[in-house]
């Protein structure tokens, strides 16, 4: 059964058409990459799925239900979590506190003013799990704002994971990172995908990452659908090569 079905969505900003009649289906357990040259409309496309924007035309179906008009928080409740191109975390709190908030919200405790010892213990244990999974345990009690970019990004991904999403959207997870950090984040994503059987859609510029991770790739160009297929298909696709003008270092 298809998890995400995007049906012919378009987004207009005044006279600018950022996304033009794009469709996509994602199956459970899949890791899908969305690529395209700058200005291809990738992030706008993501925003339509996550609810940051609503499409001008078209529908977004998640798990068989129409979520096109739902607010971001409600989409999160249904199981769509995301990260941002520019890392969005809680900078003046520690990693542990960042994760704790995510776990509590995911557990439905967001309006609770009192918590039993048991519930509190469960939350803390889950936070420890997430820390271990991401290798952030040693830095758990440092303020996120003081950490390196890669650790902040890892924290953001783990916060999204804490929501127990059925679909994880990653917007350029390795943007602005050095080689080592890019490698670490790529390994983390691969681990989540393999071990947790998580369905992931990611936007990425770094073609090494894309070809290393993705099951299937969709290519956008100037807001329009250009191609879709396995990494091998895409690498061999002439239209894609033309769009990138050889810029994609495979």
């Amino acid at each position, binding site marked *: 059964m298809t998890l995400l079905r995007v049906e012919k969505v378009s987004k207009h900003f005044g006279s600018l058409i950022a996304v033009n009649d794009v469709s996509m289906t994602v199956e459970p357990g899949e890791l899908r990459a969305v690529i395209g040259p700058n200005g291809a409309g990738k992030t706008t496309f993501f925003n339509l799925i*996550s609810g*940051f924007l609503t499409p001008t035309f078209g529908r977004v179906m998640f798990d068989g239900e129409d979520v096109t008009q739902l*607010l*971001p*928080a409600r989409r*999160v*409740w249904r199981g769509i*979590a*995301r990260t*941002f191109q520019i890392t*969005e*975390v*809680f*900078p*003046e*709190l520690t990693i542990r*506190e960042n994760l*704790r*908030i*995510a776990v*509590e*919200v*995911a557990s439905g*405790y*967001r*309006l*609770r*003013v*009192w*918590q039993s010892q048991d519930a509190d213990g469960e939350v803390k244990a889950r936070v420890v799990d997430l820390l271990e999974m991401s290798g952030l345990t040693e830095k758990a*009690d440092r303020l996120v704002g003081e950490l390196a970019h890669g650790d902040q990004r890892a924290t*953001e991904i783990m*916060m*999204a994971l804490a*929501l127990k999403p059925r679909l994880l959207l990653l917007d350029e997870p390795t943007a602005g990172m050095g080689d080592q950090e890019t490698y670490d984040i790529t390994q983390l994503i691969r681990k989540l995908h393999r071990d947790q059987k998580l369905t992931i859609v990611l936007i990425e510029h770094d073609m090494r990452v894309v070809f290393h991770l993705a099951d299937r790739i969709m290519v956008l160009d100037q807001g329009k659908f250009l191609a879709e297929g396995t990494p091998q298909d895409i690498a061999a696709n002439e239209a894609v090569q033309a769009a990138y003008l050889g810029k994609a270092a495979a």
Partner: protein
Amino acid sequence: MGAIDFNKRAANLLVWLLLGTMPYWMTAIGGYVELGSRAVVLGLGAMSLNFLLGYTGVLSFGHAAYFGLGAYGAGMMIRYVAPSTGLAIATGILVGTVAAAIIGPLIIRLRGVYFAMVTIAFGQVFYFIAFRWNAVTGGDDGLTGWTRLPIDLGFTQIDILHNPIAFYYLVLVLFAVAVGIMAFLLRSPFGRTLLAIRENERRARFLGIPVDRHIWISWIISCGFVSLAGALYALLNNFVDPRALYWTQSGDFVIMAVLGGMRSFWGPLLGAAIFVVLQDYLSSQTENWMSFLGLFFVLIVLFFPRGVLGIIRRKVTP
């Protein structure tokens, strides 16, 4: 971690010790008990504002409205309905909180300077009602002809009217309850969602927190406690006038919070204490205390933006 916890406990102990013994040292250092009551009442107001300002990250510049409504609610209860201090306080809280709950939905979608501008403008409605509705509110002259009343506990009476120390302790008990509730809330999962909103609204939204609704709740809580402060302020003075509702009063609360330190729990109380003492001193020394107060605002912004406790904390934790 351990050291910070210890410091926090020591600080809490010190605050409660100082507050608990205030009537016994205040006169010794040249003050008077009413000045202490005033500092605690306005401190409660500033701490309530800070629940929203410092812990939810929402810039309200209109808290005087709910402070004033609390004050008028309490005063009018005694003046027109029932001679009971307890009922007066309850009415004050109710009036301020209900008004905040009603206005909330109109403003919670706004942010930053716009939120500030709209909250301050809304406050003016209540100011003009109090100012114009002479027959009921006493207009510009204020609501007079009433006093706070002794509290009847059945077996004994506490004369808070003639005994300023007894009144101070009544204020302190209510202060403790209010502050305790705020601290409790901030340590709960709900309180942490407020921190999340302050830290990064976009992230909070995409964790599944309905941000507008949580800001609304935080706004109501904050305004509820500030209206308690307003009710106590009316009882303290046995008088209310429209200035309690005026927008400059809102600015006073904000400067108290900033002066003491917005990011620390006790900061606004310290800020209020400094503000109250300074205002008391300036207005007795010079006709032009307003200029000095204005200068004080400017200097704080330029040189002490983190507030007194913010600076101390920076020195303690490098």
